[in-house]
């Protein structure tokens, strides 16, 4: 029949060829449009240019996909001069070979289609069903829009689908355990998994998916009924540990190794890193300017978070504050944002010093005094409430010649992550100043004092001596006294220092995690995950006012709603099956039920693991975070369609081993309705794709009325909509 004819390898190859060709055509169509920076190209284009100019940058995503962009850029001759500052900056005017860079995601995005097809095919669905799943991704506006721009998602999704494909191949060889092929697909899974995770932080979800599948698999092997020994179990366990932990970790680390090896110069990412890290970068300010501090040096101290100088002036605290509390009426100590001679403090020792030499260097945990140079008074804090915060101690100063409160002027210098004997350095040493008698740390916050302190920032004593935000550093050395040479050997200092790769990696990885969690600022196009499967809102990527062109990231309504309906049907079938079996009924045949639970169930797990975690994330979320889940839901849709059309499946599909029990073979037969349904669906998808394509390709421009027509859901916020007068309620 037609069905069997389609399922021959030649026919299958022809179908996949057509689909792939279509995918390339749709993704490369007018890829040079617009010749402007679009949406997050601002970031990822910029990072690519940093790789080419080798300047260090910081980003929350791992470097693999960005390295590929850098490579693509280098390949097409981009010299890194253009920095992608703003959305809408012109590429043509700046002679950027952007088409070459956009080609990379377009190629990967196109290649995702045959992989999706292959997953379905390998899982035992017929050619038609596999084509159906592929078509959902092929004609999807969101996938097309996302993969023809310099964005990370196409890479992520390509490797994610490859990971799934490899894992399916691996599972099918389960009766050929430890064979060469088995090992190859296991290691391929690990390799692609590392690439997925290395492309974008979300790739970790793919790792979790495979982890869940492997755990279920191992639990089965453990089952005593299967008659496996513990030795065999441990062998399986170790194999997976090697293939899915050791290999991916090595690959993942190697991305970072290349990342650090390429980015050797100081750049925009320096300030995120620790001083030790910064000093490994060529041309870094710390590397050039950091010096050891000696007693009697006059310095300025800057607060790390709020970037204000420790400042004092002759004005005094008012006797009483507005809320009726009383001050010490001492000299004010404030935080001040600008350079001023009142920021100068001299480091005074509390111990006997040698005349010259390294003995004069200030070190970690030294007990020091700070002398305010202009007023010749010592920094002091005491048990008096600060002006703004009753819980914190007031900072003031005490005249130099009056020794009555000597103890209150003593501070410990605690270097952050300091070890005994470490020298205090300007710029690079972060430190906390902890008051010796009361154990408060000098702290400031962004709240301003009233007019009596000229709206400068409050400095107070924080009761937590290890408070993270109480970190300061020496910004500059104003003058040096004492008998040692000021001459510094420039050549010696400019040589970048070494730091072990693993230390660098650990530091960066930790920072990435922290910053990822910290991306909570609101964004007009951020949306909550519940909106995504229903396509309730999109993202405005780019607009051009003169021609009324715009790119709006939104999926193909037909495809997305098919997917979400399929998911609901799947849950319905599974629920009904559970209930029925609980009542002792078995409505499904064993092969159908197996397929539904094991293969469609696996797809649903992929979908859920790539989707549900977003509900508990508090970071900014966008609809393109759903795209990996959308691919998974396309797989589910195929499985569900197959279930609806026919109760036959291709069975068995695992490669039988030497001693595997023979099972009755069965071939899927969708009947006549199969080609009809898939054909009609393909046409519908294509028509809808074409209808929405002006928003996807950003061309041609649309007049207001047309924009209103394209706005299929009222929640889409398209630009250039014609004004409709709000109707008066009848």
């Amino acid at each position, binding site marked *: 029949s037609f069905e069997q004819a389609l399922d021959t390898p030649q026919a299958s190859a022809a179908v996949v060829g057509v689909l792939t060709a279509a995918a390339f055509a749709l993704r490369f169509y007018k890829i040079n449009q617009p010749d402007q920076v679009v949406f997050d190209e601002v970031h990822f284009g910029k990072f690519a240019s940093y790789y080419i100019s080798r300047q260090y940058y910081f980003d929350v995503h791992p470097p693999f996909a960005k390295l590929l962009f850098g490579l693509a850029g280098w390949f097409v001759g981009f010299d890194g001069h253009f920095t992608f500052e703003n959305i809408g900056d012109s590429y043509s005017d700046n002679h950027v070979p952007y088409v070459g860079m956009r080609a990379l995601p377009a190629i990967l995005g196109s290649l995702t289609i045959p992989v999706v097809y292959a997953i379905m095919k390998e899982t035992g669905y017929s050619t038609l069903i596999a084509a159906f799943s592929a078509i959902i991704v092929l004609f999807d506006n969101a996938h097309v829009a996302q993969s023809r721009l310099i964005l990370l998602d196409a890479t992520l999704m390509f490797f994610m689908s490859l990971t799934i494909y490899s894992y399916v191949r691996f599972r099918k060889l389960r009766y050929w355990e430890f064979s060469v092929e088995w090992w190859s697909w296991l290691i391929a899974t690990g390799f692609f998994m590392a690439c997925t995770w290395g492309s974008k932080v979300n790739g970790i979800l793919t790792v979790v998916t495979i982890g869940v599948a492997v755990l279920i698999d191992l*639990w089965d092997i*453990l*089952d*005593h009924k299967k008659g496996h020994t*513990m030795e065999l179990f441990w062998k399986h366990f170790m194999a997976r540990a090697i293939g899915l932990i050791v290999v991916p970790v090595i690959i993942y680390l190697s991305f970072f190794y290349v990342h650090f090896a390429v980015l050797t110069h100081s750049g925009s990412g320096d300030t995120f890193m620790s001083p030790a890290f910064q000093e490994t970068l060529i041309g870094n300010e710390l590397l050039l300017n950091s010096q050891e501090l000696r007693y009697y040096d006059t310095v300025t101290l800057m607060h790390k978070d709020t970037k204000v100088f420790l400042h004092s002036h002759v004005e005094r605290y008012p006797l009483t504050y507005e809320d009726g509390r009383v001050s010490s009426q001492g000299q004010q100590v404030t935080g001040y944002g600008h350079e001023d001679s009142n920021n100068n403090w001299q480091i005074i020792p509390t111990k006997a010093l040698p005349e010259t030499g390294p003995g004069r260097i200030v070190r970690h945990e030294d007990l020091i005094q700070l002398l305010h140079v202009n007023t010749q008074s010592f920094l002091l804090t005491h048990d008096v409430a600060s002006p703004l*915060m009753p*819980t914190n101690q007031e900072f003031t100063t005490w005249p130099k010649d009056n020794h009555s409160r000597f103890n209150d002027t003593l501070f410990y210098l605690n270097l952050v992550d300091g070890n005994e004997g470490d020298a205090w350095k300007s710029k690079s040493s972060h430190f906390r100043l902890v008051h010796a008698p*009361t*154990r*408060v740390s000098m702290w400031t916050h962004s*709240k301003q004092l009233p007019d009596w302190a000229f709206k400068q920032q409050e400095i107070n004593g924080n*009761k937590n001596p290890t408070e993270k935000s109480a970190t300061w550093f020496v910004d500059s050395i104003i003058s040096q006294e004492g008998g040692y040479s000021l001459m510094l050997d420039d050549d010696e200092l400019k040589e970048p220092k070494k730091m072990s790769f693993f230390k660098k990696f650990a530091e960066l990885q930790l920072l990435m995690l922290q910053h990822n969690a910290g991306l909570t600022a*609101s964004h*007009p196009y951020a949306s909550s995950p519940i909106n995504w499967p229903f396509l309730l809102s999109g993202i405005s990527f780019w607009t051009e006012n003169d021609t009324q062109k715009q790119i709006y990231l939104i999926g193909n309504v037909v495809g997305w709603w098919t997917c979400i309906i399929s998911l609901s049907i799947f849950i319905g079938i599974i629920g009904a099956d*559970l*209930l029925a*079996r*609980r*009542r*002792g009924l078995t409505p499904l045949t064993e092969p159908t039920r197996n397929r539904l639970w094991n293969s469609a169930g696996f797809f649903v797990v992929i979908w859920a693991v790539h989707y549900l975690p977003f509900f*508990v994330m508090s970071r900014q979320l966008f609809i393109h975070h759903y795209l990996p889940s959308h691919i998974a839901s396309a797989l589910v849709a195929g499985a569900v369609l197959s279930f609806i059309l026919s109760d036959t499946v291709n069975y068995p599909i695992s490669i039988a081993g030497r001693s595997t029990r023979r099972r009755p073979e069965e071939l899927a037969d969708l009947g006549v309705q199969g080609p009809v349904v898939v054909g009609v669906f393909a046409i519908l998808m294509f028509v809808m794709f074409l209808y929405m394509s002006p928003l996807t390709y950003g061309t041609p421009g649309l007049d207001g009325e047309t924009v209103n027509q394209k706005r299929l859901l*009222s929640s889409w*916020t398209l630009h250039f909509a014609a*004004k409709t*007068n*709000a*109707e*008066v*309620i009848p």
Partner: protein
Amino acid sequence: MRPPQVELDFGTPPGTPPRTSSDFEEVPYPADHHWATAQQQESLPLHYMSEDTATRRRVARGPGSSGGFLSGDEHEGEMQYDDEGKDVYSKSRPAKGRVSSGRIRRPPPPPPTSISEFISQNLEHLPPAIYTLLSCWTRFHKIGHSGVVVWDEAHFGKFGSHYLKREFYFDVHPPLGKMLVGLAGLLAGYDGSFEFKSGAEYSDNVPYVAMRVMMATFGVAMVPLGWYTAVELGLSSWACHLVALMVLCDVAWLCISRFILLDSMLLFFTFTTVFFLTKFHNQQYQSFSFDWWLWLAMTGISIGCVTSVKWIGLFITAVVGLYTIEDLWDKFGDLKMSYRDQIRHWAARVLCLIVLPILVYMMSFKIHFLILNHSGPGDAQMSSLFQAHLVGNDFSRNPLEVAYGSKITLKNMGWGGGLLHSHVQTYPAGSTQQQVTCYHYKDDNNDWVVLPRWDESEYNPNDPLHFLQDGDVIRLQHAATTRNLHSHNVPAPVTKLNNEVSCYGNATIGDYHDYWKVEVVDDIKQGSKDKVDRIHSLTTRLRFRHDTLGCYLRAANSVLPQWGYKQIEVSCDKENNPNDPHTYWNVESHWNDRLPPADTKFFKSPFLRDFWHLNVAMMTSNNALIPDPDKDDILASNPTDWPWMHLGLRMCGWGDHQPKYYLLGTPIIWWGGSASLVVSFIVLGVYLFRHQRKYIDMDSREWDHFLYVGKIAFYGWFLHYAPFFIMGRVTYVHHYLPTLYFSVLMFSHLLDHFIFSSRRWKEKTKKISFGVCAFLIVANFWWFRGLAWGIDGPINEHWGLLWRKSWNIYNA
């Protein structure tokens, strides 16, 4: 199959349960008999034994079951086993079949014939009675020592006063707990006149000691409840003692119960819910009996009470929900049960666990509304209509029909909506013009004057009256600053897709962006729109459409940041959703000297509407209690700080001459409980792992019991703890107190499992370990007793309290 050559002799089970040296009956599981004898037969290959146990387990369950609460269904007794003749349990099994977890059921004793028999029959109630007396002592000891308003007494004492004065107030918590505070005040003879300022000294007319004692009584009851819950759970008597001791000796529970706070009631009702649930579980063998209905209904009522005290009670509701789902799933798989019984089971759950709690919850609000019939500080949270019939409110004297020149306040009609408000502060971003917000309290900044457009002739008080009508385009002037309500094409601060609404210009300066078209939706009294002739205060529902932009004035419940004083954002919605109540407004107060006051008797505000309105308002305020990054709140803590007692909480001033209370648990109870939760996970993992490899560690009854108690404890703990992580609001240490109960249960359960009910140890070992545990708990309590009873004198003179560096007990 069992090899035939093995001969089994299990002996006969002892006729009467053995008595221990203590005063309580030690009830061994029937399983023990079997094991005790099996242990003697060391050569017996256990592997074969367990296989027939496994066979039995398979028969008893429906397909797909994985050991629910009720595995081993009601008909187990009627099951016919292949090996019936050899079944060692069959003799000790009650004829009707039984639930395989929970308390072992004993037949009721014969009626006592003499006093001594009566005493011996009820001897098991002696220990809980003693614990209750001890609990009275710890809870009431020195309860009036601190004569000042401690901590949240400032809130809850005040709310109690409002009930006595019958003034309407607003708070984020449901009313039951506060009404009980009010009741305590009433019984103690308090007249409601005290202000309850934080830290203030109680005046002579406040019977605060009596009120505290009444609150602490709820705390006293926790101890016997803990004991009987442990009994009902089927823990050994050793473990029952431990549960009671831990409940008795936890300093945090003690401390929080001794003041006029809601927590003692919340804890009490949480405890009763668990107790009733376990009671109900033990009645499962006789569905639809009187006792079965009684405990199911009591569970429902208890759920209703706990949620009517604080919404945190919803967590315990979720525990009951999980239990019920699993239970019903088990029943669903019972193919022998008739359809009628299936339906009856479902109906009973719906009735007792859904309908009943909702009724209790609504009842508490009904009483709340009935008591608070005077105007008070919470008026503005409610709809205008509701306010109109509060005693002391003058809305009914408003002129009825709004005219040009009227001064009005506008109330948003979305659930929980406030009054349209503006103040001199400006937006920090956007247009930087004067802020317009929605505000829940009454002040002069809510007043607006209805004025004609700029292009019309200026309003003149001497002109003939011109009433406001549907479709009029007007200007709304903010009375206090004379600026005009204004909107323009600038994104609103929070809802960026809407236009910003601001106040702009003054009495003479303005532009066409100040024009608003009045659109009538309908009138509650006059009916649909076409019947509305003139706009009436209170009853007419209006929308304001910006004349040039076409957007609608809207206040949904999004909260402005600190610069907007956490008031509600007002924006202009570009979408026209005619059904969006957040764009509906009504005129609330109305002043116009030229109009006569309305003499209409105002209409009833339906209870359900008020109930829903108040609940939405509570929800909105609760969500607005988010941690303020600008403010360093030393009292607030993170959920991660709780299980290991990272932080305590100073409940009052820390001066040398006042008694000081510090909210901190008894470390051994908190740490032991948290550790036991970790251990329970590991143990479960190990058991499952061994089960998968076909090692038999327990028979099915023991396994079911282990799972049943473990599930109650773990679900309870998890559902009372995890939600705090996703909640946006500020959290405090005392939010962990209901959670602690479940970690105590888990702790006792594991001790019971590994020591007191384990076959591995000798009786003597068990006694010694119990002695050690009890001693540690009591000693630990005694060490920290001052935290709850009040520490006198300078704090730094008390030694040895700082067990973790992060506690701020001592003054640095």
